[in-house]
């Protein structure tokens, strides 16, 4: 296991990616290691408002000379994310990372499907860029409500292209790419005979539910990155549990956030 640390990080840059989303780049001293699918608990503020840290999937970790750049893609949905969107470059935050278990990126894979819906992109993008570096072939399916909310399209395309994979874009309103849900785009290719060793996905619950159905149909190994409200991020509060197929509640932060779809309780899917 990679050592968890509570890092003092410095806001290096914030870049708007869409009307609601932005990229937050943080610098930590020394090396930081992590695998795609892992996440961090980020303090948004000094003081008690908001009170708890926020969970964000790592979207990239790049070693620099003597320091590490940690990247997040964040959607502004409330107090904490609004504060982060307005964080002053140079200001200090705390980041407890890396946490949880990431995607299975075993080198032997023939071809993987990476699927991201909306702000589910960060762990998928991290995975794509790592896989591109390892020359593991994958297709990347990226869906969003509309063209404005398709994030990091270029990076996605570049990563997929590097290993001869396809970057499939879909929007709910057809304003760019296929006019379809991202799962429909995947289904189409599967029924056309495209074969994957495994699907790695992150996105809204309905998307993950549809994906699970699809995976079952095609007997496809599928790993899902889940979100549950979190307080500690390290398995001690038991606030973030998800129900497994065997009936147990396990902390998403510690046993996940990435789970094989088959391990999850059916009733997890609404």
């Amino acid at each position, binding site marked *: 296991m990679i050592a968890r640390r509570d890092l003092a990080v410095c806001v290096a840059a914030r870049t708007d990616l869409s009307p609601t989303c932005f990229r937050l780049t943080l610098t930590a001293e020394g090396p930081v290691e992590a695998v795609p699918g892992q996440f961090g608990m980020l303090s948004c503020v000094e003081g008690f408002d*908001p009170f708890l*840290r926020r969970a964000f999937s790592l979207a990239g970790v790049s070693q620099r000379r003597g320091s590490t750049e940690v990247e997040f893609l964040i959607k502004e949905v409330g107090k904490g994310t609004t504060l982060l969107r307005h964080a002053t470059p140079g200001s200090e935050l705390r980041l*407890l990372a890396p946490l949880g278990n990431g995607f299975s990126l075993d080198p032997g894979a023939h071809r993987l499907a990476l699927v991201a819906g909306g702000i589910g992109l960060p762990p998928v993008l991290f995975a794509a860029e790592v896989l591109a570096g390892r020359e593991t072939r994958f297709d990347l399916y990226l869906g969003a409500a509309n063209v404005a909310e398709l994030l990091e399209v270029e990076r996605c395309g570049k990563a997929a292209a590097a290993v001869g994979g396809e970057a499939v874009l879909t929007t709910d309103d057809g304003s760019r790419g296929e006019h379809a849900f991202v799962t429909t785009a995947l289904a189409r290719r599967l029924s056309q005979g495209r074969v994957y060793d495994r699907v790695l996905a992150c996105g809204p619950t309905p998307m993950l539910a549809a994906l699970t159905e699809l995976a079952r149909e095609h007997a496809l190994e599928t790993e899902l990155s889940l979100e549950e409200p979190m307080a500690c991020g390290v*398995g*001690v509060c*038991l606030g973030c*549990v998800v129900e497994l197929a065997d009936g147990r509640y396990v902390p998403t932060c510690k046993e996940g956030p990435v789970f094989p779809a088959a391990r999850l309780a059916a009733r997890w899917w609404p």
Partner: protein
Amino acid sequence: MSVRLGVELGKLAVANPIMAASGTFGYGLDLLEFCPPERLGAVVTKGLSPKPRRGSPTPRIVETAAGMINAIGLQNIGVEAFCIEALPVLRQRGAVVAVNVFGERMEEYVEVIERCEREEGIAAYELNVSCPNVTAGGIEFGHDPAQLERLTRMGRAATRRVLWVKLSPNAPDLVGTARAAVDGGADGLTLINTLRAMAIDAEKRRPVLARGCGGLSGPAIKPIALRMVWEVHRALPSVPLVGIGGVETGRDVVEFLLAGASAVQVGTAIFRDPAAPLHILGELERFCAEHGIAEVRELVGALEWH
């Protein structure tokens, strides 16, 4: 200036007054690299029942102003698994362990204690009669002095180890329940557990938590916890108290000690900082050094009234 951090809770002497609270530090081994359990005055385990418990459905937690509400429902691995999996490691590391004991019936409390009695390395039991998140048992014992005295007496009969009762801030009569616990044979009292509270989702028109209500913790409740510690200390000045509720800084600890606690537990703060207990201990030591306080124990109950 070097500060003596040790305090006594009746017959239990601990190296420092900072403990990790039940339910916020797992079984003491989840945060080893941030907060080694042996460096704390004591670690209190997550509430243990005779059998493993699944706990409540989700959502279980929600953030509030300067606090949070939880309804975990006492999910735990059961006393047997604790004794086999966690306790040996805690013992080997030299941690002072307090087992938080929970049962739906009085006999279950005794069962947990009896199982633990077969093990070395447990310094104290903390009877959790105040968890607002279970329907059966638990909460009633903490609200009714007569039942609480009986339960404590049963616990007392089962062990010669240190026995604490953790008081409910929701009880109709705080001092009455405190007295009942002491009459039943408790060596000390820990207070407070969480306050019954609720959060509502205005969009969904539903309680945020699956169980509807839960327990409020964090800095929001500190002023209430301090008042309760002071009230119980004034009523029962010779009973060792462990203060809990919103402790985030060394200064908070000083406040609880002044109010009459001999030690404090750090709960929710751990979620914001996995090394919180150690950071708080450091701040306490610095506060004492800067204020010429040679021994932390001087502070206990040293509040001057006007």
